Structures are given as structure tokens and as C-alpha cells.
């Protein structure tokens, strides 16, 4: 519970208020014994004060606590000074400072207020803005008991965010699309439709492929160029003749290194060796025989032993020589033939370039203008060194031919073999290219005639396009990926938007349910309370509820007030408005949740009521607020306490009301016990000791001024037995009575009281308006009166 408003400084009419200084702890009981009382607010608190005494300002402080706001007006004369408030709540002190506001929000949303604002919010007399709107919309006057404004605000707030998000998402999409469009703005061949999706980008995007794509694009574009040439020069292509193969003059198969070597190695010895081998086992015999024959020492042939006649031996030798000659001659002839063939072979190698068809290269070049031939026509690479070797070898062969029986040797045979193999390989390769080229040419001519080349062109165009797209994707990968991912973001955001829609629909559905529940419960309750507070209200109350969730039309929820079929709203008195508002407030209190945590504030709840209603309503207020944590009733009705203390509900009666009184114009809160005299006695003791107050500061002036004022009012009211709203009324009455004692001092009382009000003590000592010395002078005058 709120225990104290410990301190208020520079808030509204409160320039300075200090709870502990103005509500003395030490007083005396009825028997005059000293008593120490810790004055604190209790469950029920009635704060009485005349108009202008600061009641509404205290309500404002509670509202500021409830809203955790800094909306508290400063004193009009102290605009440049800081504000300060301290509230004791349970064991905590909640403090308000000029710069930081409330230091802890523990009392936020803990209050429920019935005041002028509540009445204006819910019960309109026909001039309020919202009523006028409804009047226009519905054509009827209506009293509002609830406008669901909070829910409408929540809905509106939600809608605003949803719209804000939708716009942000749409702007995001538009921005990304503009960036994407810019990528294609200077490119003719590629359009947005050529880029499929993120996956295709990621598959294409390998930068290592760029070179391959570029090369492929170059080839395809060359092919296309040739194709286009082909379409232009179709007749020329038809006239292109096939390439001729090289008719190889080289017979390589017989090329045998040992054979060639044997050709060079042929000598007379080589021939004789064969004969000798034949008679190898008779070598000595043959040698001896031949020697004998040559030396003509024999009469008989050493081989056949026939008598050798004169001259016969020559015949023998000749015969043997003939044997030798035949073999030798055969071998020599084979050698000579071999050399001839080898020479031809070498000559052919040497002249192989002459066997290449001379027109082939020209035709091949012409074909290349139209055809795509992957292989080039091979060119014979026959270097000088190789030609020299061949020429040298031919010279050696010719030399051997001339000196057939001389031993010759060639060092080039191995190289000749390599050259021959190289040439044969060249010829094979050349003829292979010729064959392939001729095949391509033939196929090309056939395709051209059948129109297949047009299809090929289309295909080429597509491939070229795709390659360009691939290169574009590689070069613009980040921008393209950003776009496709932004599309995904947008779609995800749209999903979020759908969720917001779902929440919004659920919210509206709940509001609708709340509204129906509200109209059902509150109409009945409010009508019942109106009858209880004021049974004599004569108008008809037709409940009306309209709630257009899908439009901006404000909620209509309330009563049409009619009397004899006519709208009577504009004719409502203040009292009638207050009855309706209070009835609705009670209905709200009934439905309030967490009652034990809430503090109910009434600001002049019954001011406009007649005496009968005041009593019943005061009792109703106490009964209805019993379940709440605490209740504060601010009133200018001096009889309110009396109504409250006579409440029939024993539970409430036993709750021990506390009655605090705000003195008019004093801007302080004084606790009023059953015996006010004890407080006055306490204050008077302070007055008698005033000379002991050393400083006499502004704060002392305010506190002692408030005490002086309280004592005068209490003395006059209590002792004279008048219980009027205004001290002046009391004094006027006193003047007319026979109380001589008071009549004699009446002018002095008025003088002191006037000093309290006009001398600056009412709220604070205006600069130069009073002083501690002046105040103590009036205190002394008051004590002298001995009232």
C-alpha cells in the first residue's frame, strides 16, 4: 500500500510539503498522556479539501505514477526550479526527480481513476468530438460507456506496423529489381529470361571455366561465320574438289639395316669366303693343290689325280675359277641390284615433297573458309641436315657401285631409317587428313543440299547464346546471386507478412469476442448501477453496439438516451452524466482482474449529487472498492467522512477508515484523528517553542504557516461546532451569534487567517511577502488569543 506522500516540491500548488514535519508523531491521548503515532495511509483514505486545495494535483501525481510519466506541472511561480516527489510504497521509496522522472515503475498501471477525465471519456454530452462523429455516422446521439479505444489502438498500431513492413518489403523488392534490370541495360543479346535461377548460376559460376567458355565461344563464332559464308557461297562449295592423297614412292618394308650394311660390305673376299666355306674341311688340301698347279710342279692333278698334260693345268685352274666366278658373280649381281634399289629409295625420300599434290593446300585453304576442319593439312618438315644426309648417302651408294669389290661403310644408315620412318608417318598423317577432309567436304555438301546446315546454324546460335550467358553469369555472379537471393528474402518476408496477417485476424477475432462479451456484461451491469445510484432517472437506455473491424469507423458501444422517443443526450445534466459514468465505473471495477493489486482513485465522485445520492454512493464506493488494495477518495464534501463511517457493510466498517484532510489553500495533507485537539495541542507546543527554531528558513516558514492555519481552522470549526465548507462562512456565522468571547477576537482571527492566506503562507513565502520574524509575530498573537 501507499503509506505516505513523503515529500512534494514544486508540483502545482505544492511548493513544499513534508509529511513528517506537518503530521506530528507525538501527541496525547484522551487522558492527556503522550502518545507516538506513525501516521500512514490506510486501506481507505478520504482526502477532503476545498476547491483549489491541491486535490487534483495529488491525483495527477498518482496518474504520473500510473503512466510512469513526467507529466507534472510546476508551480506557476517556480518554473525554473526542479520538481521532486517521494512516495512510500510498502517498504520502498519511489522518487521523482526533475531529470530522470520516477526512479522505479513499480506502480505503473496499478491505479484505476474515476475523475473528470473518465466522465468526459465515456459519457459525452453531445459536444465531444467523438460523439459528433458518431452522430454523423449513425444519425443518432449516443452515450458512450466504452469505446474499446485501447484495443482499437492496439489494432491500429499492429496494422500500421504490418503496412510499414509490407511497404518496406515492396520497396526492397523494387530496389533489387531495379539493380537487376540495370545489369541487362547495356546488353542486347542477354535478357533476364536467360538467367534461370540461383542453382544454374552456381553450376555455371566456376571461374575456372571462363577460359574454356571464351575459347569455345570463339570457335563457335568462327563456325557460325563459316556457315554464313557457306550460305552465301553455296555454289563455290559444290565446285570444291576433293584433296588428293600422296602416292607414296617409298617402299619401306624391305628396308633392313643388316641388308643395307651387307651391300656396302660386299668385296672379293666376301665372294671367296663363300667358296672357301664350301671346301672348308679341305682347305690345306686345296691350298697345296692349287699351289702345286700354279707352280706347275705336278704331273697329276692333286684333286682328281689325272695326268696333267702341258697346258692342262690351266684348264683345271680355269674350271676352278669358273666355280668361283659363278658364285661371285651371283653375289655381285645381287649387291649391285640392292645398291640400285637403295639408291632409288634414297632418291625417292629426297624427292618426296614432289609427290605431294600441289593443289591440295589451295583447296584446303578454300575449304577452310566454309568448313570446320579441326586438323590442319600437314606440312612436310624436311630440314637441311636431313637432306644433306640423304645426299651424302646417295654419294656413298654411287661410290660403292663404282668400286663394287671395295669395302665401304656408311654411318648414316640409322639416320636414313629414322628419316624414312618420319616421312612415312608424315605421308600417313597427310593422307589421313586428306581422307577426313574429303569426308567432311562430302558430308558438308550433302548437308547443305538437304538443309541440315540451317539447323546447325540454329544450334550454333543457341550454343553461342548460352556461352555468352555463361560468361555473363561468371562476370556478374555476385549481382545475379544477390538478386535471386533477394527474391528468396522477399518470399520469406512475404511468409512473415502472412504470419502477421494471421496474428491480425486472430487479434480482430479476439477483439470481436471481447466486444461481444463487453456489450453483454457491461450494458446489464451499468443499467443496474444506474438504477441503484439514481432510481429516478427517467430516460430510456437503449444499448447499441457496432464494431466494424474492417473499416476505420470508430467503435460504437453505448446507450442511446431517449425520453418519449426523442434523443435527450444534449439535455443531460452534470449530475446525470456523473451517475452514468459512475455506474459504468462500478461495472468496470466488478470486472477488474487482480483487484488486490490495484489502487482506486476517486476525484470528487459525488460532487454533483444531491444529499440522498451522496450518502448511498459513498457507501457504494466503499463496498465496491473493498477488494482492492487501497482506495483514495478526494472530495470537497465535508460530510463524506460521516457517510463513510456509517456504512452498513460491517466488513467495510471494520476496515478502519483513515480520514485525511487537505486544508484549503494550505497545500498540505494533515492527518485528522478523532480528536483534532491533540494535533492542535502539539502544534501549539511547537509555537511556544518557536524561539528555539534557529534558522527560520523558507521551509520553516511554510511548515509553521501550515500549522498555524490548521490550528485556526480547527479551533474555529471544532470549538464553535460549525462544520462548514469555508472558514469565512463560519466566521460570518460567529459574528451573528452571542459568543462574545469569540466576537471580541473575531477581527484578530481574521487578521491572522488573512495573513496565512495573503501573507504568502498559503503555499510558500513569496519573495519579500513575509519573513520568519513576521510569522513568529502572528504565532504569538494566535497564542495570546488562547482559543
Amino acid at each position, binding site marked *: 500500500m501507499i503509506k505516505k506522500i513523503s515529500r512534494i516540491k514544486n508540483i502545482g500548488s505544492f511548493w513544499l510539503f513534508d509529511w513528517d514535519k506537518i503530521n506530528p508523531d507525538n501527541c496525547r491521548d484522551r487522558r492527556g498522556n503522550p502518545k507516538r503515532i506513525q501516521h500512514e495511509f490506510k486501506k481507505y483514505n478520504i482526502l477532503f479539501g476545498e476547491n483549489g486545495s491541491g486535490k487534483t494535483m495529488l491525483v495527477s501525481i498518482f496518474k504520473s505514477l500510473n503512466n510512469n510519466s513526467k507529466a507534472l506541472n510546476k508551480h506557476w511561480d517556480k518554473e525554473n526550479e526542479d520538481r521532486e516527489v517521494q512516495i512510500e510504497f510498502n517498504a520502498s521509496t519511489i522518487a521523482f526527480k526533475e531529470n530522470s522522472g520516477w526512479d522505479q515503475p513499480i506502480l505503473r498501471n496499478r491505479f484505476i481513476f474515476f475523475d473528470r477525465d473518465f466522465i468526459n471519456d465515456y459519457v459525452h454530452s453531445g459536444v465531444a468530438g467523438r460523439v459528433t462523429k458518431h452522430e454523423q455516422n449513425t444519425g443518432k446521439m449516443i452515450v458512450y460507456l466504452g469505446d474499446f479505444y*485501447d484495443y482499437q489502438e492496439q489494432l491500429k498500431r*499492429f496494422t500500421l506496423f504490418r503496412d510499414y513492413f509490407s511497404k518496406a518489403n515492396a520497396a526492397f523488392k523494387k530496389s533489387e529489381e531495379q539493380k537487376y534490370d540495370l545489369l541487362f541495360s547495356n546488353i542486347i543479346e542477354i535478357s533476364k529470361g536467360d538467367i534461370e535461377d540461383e542453382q544454374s548460376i*552456381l553450376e555455371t559460376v566456376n571461374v575456372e571455366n571462363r577460359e574454356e567458355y571464351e575459347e569455345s565461344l570463339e570457335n563457335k563464332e568462327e563456325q557460325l561465320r563459316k556457315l554464313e559464308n557457306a550460305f552465301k557461297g553455296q555454289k563455290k562449295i559444290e565446285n570444291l574438289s576433293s584433296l588428293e592423297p600422296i602416292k607414296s614412292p617409298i617402299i619401306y618394308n624391305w628396308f633392313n639395316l643388316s641388308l643395307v650394311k651387307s651391300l656396302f660390305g660386299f668385296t672379293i673376299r666376301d665372294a671367296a669366303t663363300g667358296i672357301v666355306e664350301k671346301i672348308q674341311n679341305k682347305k690345306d688340301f686345296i691350298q697345296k693343290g692349287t699351289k702345286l698347279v700354279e707352280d706347275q710342279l705336278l704331273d697329276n692333278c692333286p684333286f682328281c689325280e689325272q695326268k696333267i698334260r702341258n697346258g692342262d693345268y690351266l684348264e683345271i685352274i680355269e674350271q676352278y675359277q669358273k666355280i668361283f666366278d659363278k658364285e661371285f658373280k651371283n653375289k655381285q649381281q645381287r649387291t649391285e641390284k640392292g645398291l640400285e634399289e637403295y639408291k632409288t629409295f634414297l632418291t625417292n625420300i629426297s624427292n618426296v615433297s614432289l609427290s605431294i599434290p600441289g593443289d591440295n593446300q589451295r583447296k584446303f585453304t578454300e575449304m577452310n573458309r566454309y568448313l570446320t576442319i579441326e586438323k590442319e593439312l600437314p606440312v612436310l618438315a624436311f630440314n637441311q641436315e636431313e637432306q644433306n644426309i640423304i645426299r651424302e648417302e646417295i654419294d656413298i651408294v654411287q661410290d660403292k657401285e663404282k668400286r663394287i669389290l671395295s669395302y665401304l661403310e656408311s654411318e648414316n644408315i640409322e639416320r636414313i631409317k629414322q628419316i624414312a620412318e618420319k616421312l612415312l608417318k608424315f605421308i600417313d598423317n597427310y593422307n589421313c587428313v586428306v581422307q577426313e577432309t574429303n569426308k567432311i567436304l562430302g558430308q558438308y555438301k550433302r548437308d547443305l543440299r538437304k538443309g541440315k546446315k540451317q539447323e546447325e546454324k540454329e544450334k550454333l546460335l543457341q550454343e553461342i547464346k548460352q556461352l555468352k550467358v555463361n560468361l555473363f553469369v561468371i562476370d556478374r555472379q555476385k549481382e545475379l*546471386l544477390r*538478386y535471386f*537471393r533477394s527474391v528468396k*528474402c522477399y518470399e520469406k518476408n512475404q511468409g512473415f507478412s502472412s*504470419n502477421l496477417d494471421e496474428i491480425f485476424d486472430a487479434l480482430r477475432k*479476439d477483439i470481436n469476442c471481447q466486444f461481444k462479451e463487453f456489450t453483454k456484461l457491461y450494458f446489464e451491469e451499468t443499467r443496474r448501477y444506474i438504477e441503484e445510484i439514481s432510481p429516478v432517472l427517467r430516460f430510456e437506455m437503449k444499448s447499441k453496439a457496432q464494431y466494424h473491424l474492417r473499416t476505420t469507423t470508430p467503435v460504437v458501444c453505448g446507450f442511446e438516451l431517449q425520453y418519449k422517443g426523442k434523443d435527450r443526450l444534449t439535455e443531460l445534466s452534470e449530475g446525470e452524466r456523473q451517475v452514468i459514468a459512475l455506474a459504468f465505473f462500478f461495472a468496470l471495477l466488478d*470486472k477488474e482482474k487482480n483487484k488486490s493489486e490495484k489502487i482506486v482513485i476517486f476525484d470528487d465522485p459525488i460532487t454533483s449529487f444531491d444529499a440522498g445520492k451522496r450518502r448511498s454512493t459513498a457507501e457504494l464506493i466503499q463496498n465496491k472498492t473493498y477488494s482492492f488494495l487501497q482506495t483514495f477518495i478526494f472530495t470537497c464534501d465535508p460530510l463524506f467522512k460521516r457517510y463513510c463511517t456509517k456504512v452498513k457493510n460491517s466488513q467495510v466498517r471494520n476496515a478502519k477508515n483513515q480520514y485525511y484532510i487537505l486544508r484549503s489553500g494550505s497545500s498540505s495533507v494533515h492527518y485528522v484523528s478523532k480528536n483534532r485537539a491533540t494535533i492542535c495541542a502539539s502544534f501549539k507546543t511547537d509555537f511556544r517553542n518557536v524561539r528555539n527554531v534557529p534558522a527560520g528558513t523558507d521551509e520553516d516558514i511554510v511548515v509553521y504557516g501550515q500549522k498555524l492555519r490548521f490550528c485556526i481552522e480547527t479551533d474555529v470549526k471544532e470549538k464553535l461546532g460549525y462544520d462548514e465548507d469555508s472558514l469565512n462562512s463560519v466566521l460570518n456565522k460567529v459574528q451573528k451569534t452571542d459568543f462574545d468571547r469569540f466576537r471580541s477576537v473575531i477581527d484578530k482571527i481574521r487578521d491572522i487567517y488573512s495573513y496565512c492566506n495573503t501573507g504568502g503562507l498559503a503555499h510558500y513565502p513569496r519573495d519579500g511577502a513575509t519573513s520568519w520574524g513576521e510569522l513568529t509575530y502572528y504565532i504569538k498573537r494566535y497564542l495570546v488569543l488562547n482559543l
Partner: protein
Amino acid sequence: MDKENLLQKVKEESEDQEIKDIIDVLGDMSLLNEDLLKSFEEKKFISFEPAVDYDQEDK
């Protein structure tokens, strides 16, 4: 009138965890639109900045 926080009611009634999470971020709707948007972005409900860190993530 002690009006119920209907957003919280919607959260309690919803079986969709994402709806519940969204309402948690919405809170009592006291934040400005810009701040709410930022909160949702931070909590990855929405995004206005597509990731294009190709080299690290996608290759």
C-alpha cells in the same frame, strides 16, 4: 477497464511456434516501426540484405 493484452492471448491460443516467436518480438507494440523491423531482422524473421558471399558459402 483492465483490458487483456490480446496479443498475448493470441500467442497463448496459437499452436504455431513462429507465431508465438513473432508475438514475443512484437511485445506490447510500444516500439517504433523502425525498431520493430530491426528487431525482426536481428532475430532472422525477415531480411532485407541477401547474402552473396559466394566464395565462402556456395562454392
